[in-house]
């Protein structure tokens, strides 16, 4: 493997209850790059991320992390325990105790300075995600792993949040891996796209991926829907989630 690589996943396969979740997946995370994992529901995106983080074990294959790297993790929309009274500040400090000047700087960076004394239970979707991002950044990570960072955020907040992530990468030079299933916002702010449907369908720069036939097979319906909101017709069938029913994803 490249000595530069922060984290590499090699030939990882996962089965759960005799169902294949991931099949022979390879990923390399390079310093300073934003890698976005896209794919339909049930494609194994979250599982792949949990394998990278070490939260789940693969049935075969290896995950190699560069020695001494620090990882910041932003989980999917947090189910905060409803009976826990806790301020935003205390929640962030729970992750790591740092100097208050550094803490102030990160809170400023993520735009949560004004809500530090609010209760966690009262936050809106967008505020919640920023607080989670702040807690991840407090660890000064070399690699940020974000699971569906804009879930539960209103539309105008979504692009602001993606912009914030792009800014953070630019300022800190950390690598970012994120899982997402919305296409357009992601494509603008990403260096590498990994198109996952249990196996890696295609990977590379956003432009090359969007032109590849595997991508069009996988996302055809969605791309079509977004381009023609009112009138669109199909020359193929797809399921209720927009996935293509015929296995159109052939690759060598």
């Amino acid at each position, binding site marked *: 493997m490249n000595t530069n690589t922060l984290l590499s996943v090699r030939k990882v396969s996962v089965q759960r209850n005799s169902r294949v979740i991931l099949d022979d997946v390879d990923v390399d995370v390079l310093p300073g790059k934003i890698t976005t994992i896209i794919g339909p529901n049930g494609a194994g995106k979250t599982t792949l991320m*949990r394998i990278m*983080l*070490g*939260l789940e074990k693969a049935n075969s294959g290896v995950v190699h992390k560069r020695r001494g790297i620090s*990882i910041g*993790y932003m*989980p999917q929309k*947090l189910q*905060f*325990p409803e*009976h*826990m*009274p*806790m*301020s935003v500040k*205390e*929640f962030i400090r*729970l*992750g*790591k105790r740092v100097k208050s000047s550094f803490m102030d700087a990160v809170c400023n960076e993520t735009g949560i300075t004004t809500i530090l004394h609010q*209760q966690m239970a009262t936050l809106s979707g967008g505020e919640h995600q920023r607080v989670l991002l702040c*807690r991840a950044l407090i*660890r000064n990570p070399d690699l940020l792993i974000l699971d569906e960072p804009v879930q539960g955020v209103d539309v105008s907040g979504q692009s602001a949040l993606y912009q914030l992530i792009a800014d953070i990468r630019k300022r800190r030079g950390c690598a970012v891996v994120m899982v997402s299933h919305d296409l357009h916002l992601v494509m603008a702010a990403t260096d590498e796209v990994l198109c996952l449907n249990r196996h890696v369908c295609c990977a590379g720069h956003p432009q090359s991926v969007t032109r590849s036939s595997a991508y069009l097979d996988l996302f055809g319906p969605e791309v079509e829907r977004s381009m023609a909101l009112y009138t669109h017709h199909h020359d193929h069938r797809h399921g209720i989630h927009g996935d293509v029913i015929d296995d159109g994803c052939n690759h060598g």
Partner: protein
Amino acid sequence: MMVAIMDDFLIRALIAGCMLALVAGVLGVFVVWRRMAYFGDAIAHSSLLGVALGFVAGVQPGVAVILVAVSIALLLQLMISRLSLSSDTLLGIFSHTGLAIGLVVLSQLNGVRIDLHGLLFGDILSVGIDDLYLIVITGIIVLIITAIFWNSLLSIVVHRDLAWIEGVPVFWIEVILMVNIALVISMAMKVVGVLLITALLIVPAAAARSLSSSPLQMTALSVVVGILSVLGGLAASWHWDTPTGPSIVVCAATVFVIFNLIALIRRQLNI
């Protein structure tokens, strides 16, 4: 004047009750946060089996209860992570089977006179000097362990995966929490009895929730509610000859209602 009429048994009851309220207040908040009320019930009910086994093996009942409660807590922890049965079903099975087996075994013990009523509903006024030592020592151990691991415990309550990634040894912290709760339950058995232990864990903590804004504040308030309930329960039992364990729980429930009313009024008035 008061001291003159306070008998030894009453002093022992006060110390045991307050120590228990202190520890139950601290662990109770975790039971509420992690939704472990059924877990508490399962351990409490099956610790009746501990009493029975204690008699069979000739071990002091207090010690036998501790051993059985801790074993069951560890067993449950392992089973919940491995079995696909939903955990409330599993805990329901454990809880009532434990109670039933305990009752069957106790009924078959010949020549031992057992105060079943005391086991089920508690008998704080019969706390002996040995019981008192056991309660105080267990309580101090639980408090020290909880204080040492406070931050890690809070972390796993808030988000298990995040805690793991931030370097908290999640499995062991969960084991520590389970064992601590089992220890509190075995302490509480003599005071409020098998059927009311969970109430002592969750009612003061739930009462404290409505008026607190930080985990530490909720814990402190929960301890205060617990101690007030023990004092109130003992006083009621002294004056009106009501059963002590249930009186303690009634006091705690009263505080729960009052606190929630205060919180409601504060919200309405926006203060």
